[in-house]
């Protein structure tokens, strides 16, 4: 598991599929090979009033770690990550009288997955309860595990690939963690950040 940077790519009046098409042509031109598809999804549960102050549990799955369920618990003051194996979903069903999910909040990002050198690039179409919301580009540099060491290198790659839309600063979530060893839960945090933004934003109105 290497350092991963997740960034939004503006659609600029293009449709979602068209944008993905433009990006995949670009990455193929750089010499990438498509290696299957990927999917990251997120379901959010909120606590029932009887349980006291409201808390939120986000349950995420990432096809890169298919046997793991990631959960992030937000209490308002802090966020607690948890990684479990697949049966956690079953436990969430058992918890249905304590934590309930709103069906409109199911967010996912899916699309093609490419490998180019030691980089892994994923072009995700983001939908929130089936409404197209935008494009997320995930770039992973797999040999390196410390964000601070390879941020410049990743920035160069992203700018070479996305042009001016490439990020100039590390994602907000990573900024305090640049010296720590990167782990899959950090990718999940980044996805959740973006999903939360997308959920709040008005839909672009096009079906993906």
């Amino acid at each position, binding site marked *: 598991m290497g350092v991963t940077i997740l960034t939004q790519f503006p659609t600029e009046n293009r449709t979602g599929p068209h944008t993905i098409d433009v990006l995949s042509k670009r990455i193929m031109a750089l010499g990438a090979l*498509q290696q*299957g*598809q*990927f*999917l990251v*999804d997120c*379901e959010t549960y909120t*606590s*029932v009033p*009887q*349980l*006291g102050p409201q*808390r939120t*549990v986000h349950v995420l*799955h990432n*096809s890169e770690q*298919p046997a793991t*369920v990631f*959960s992030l*618990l937000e*209490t308002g003051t*802090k966020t*607690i*990550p*948890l*990684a*479990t*194996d*697949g*049966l*956690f*979903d*079953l*436990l969430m069903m*058992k*918890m249905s*009288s*304590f934590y309930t999910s709103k069906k409109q909040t199911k967010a*996912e990002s*899916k699309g093609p997955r490419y490998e180019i050198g030691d980089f892994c690039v994923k072009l995700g179409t983001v939908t929130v309860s089936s409404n197209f919301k935008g494009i997320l580009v995930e770039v992973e540099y797999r040999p390196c595990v410390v964000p601070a060491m390879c941020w410049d290198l990743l920035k160069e790659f992203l700018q070479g690939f996305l042009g001016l839309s490439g990020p100039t600063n590390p994602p907000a979530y990573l900024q305090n963690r640049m010296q720590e060893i990167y782990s899959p839960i950090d990718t999940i945090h980044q996805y959740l950040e973006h999903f939360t933004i997308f959920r709040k934003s008005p839909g672009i109105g096009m079906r993906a």
Partner: protein
Amino acid sequence: MSAPGTAMDSLSAALKCNIIPNQEYLLQGSVLDQYVEVLLHRLRGLCDNVDSGPESFHDHELCFTLRAGSGSGAPIVLPLRVRRALDVADAPFQLRYVGQQELGDKNRPTVVRSSIDMACSSTIVEFLTELGCRLDFEYIARGYMFRKGRMKITVSKIFKVAGNKPVETVEPISQSYLVELSVLAPSGQDAIGEDMRIFAEQLRPLVQLEKIDYKRLGSMM
């Protein structure tokens, strides 16, 4: 290449095929400290891991409950247990939901209860606490584990965790070892109960492995 399905899709598919081991079949008993060697010796002979010897464990178990009062009537309670190994430094924690005993018919040879068992990261304790769970009780179990087919036999000494004392100074709660014979299986595989009864028969009279009714036990003691 086909797109990966969502995790929930594959989970519901697994549920439909009934391949998730979510039922625990259980028999319990105990053996006095001075006879535990005899029992271990017999188990070594009876169980699968003959050449490697018994597997020892030293675990700390924390039992949480998640409860919400619904105004009137009994509160809804969800028990959750966390187990962590004290002897293996980087072993994952284990999270477990254990349901009520199924009432079923009296002729079933074992206790049957629903169970969801999974590995998890070490943040689980904080996660559960912040989720609203309350730590009900905790204990330390140290002993040996044996395997016979898909049956699991544990012989363990139960220690009380006294406040914030270090783990080394815990005191045992009785002069006996707890002996448990259990199988995790998908629901509906009642034949395993018969296998367990036969195996328990082979441990008599050293240990009387029985189907113990928690409710009766609760009112009895």
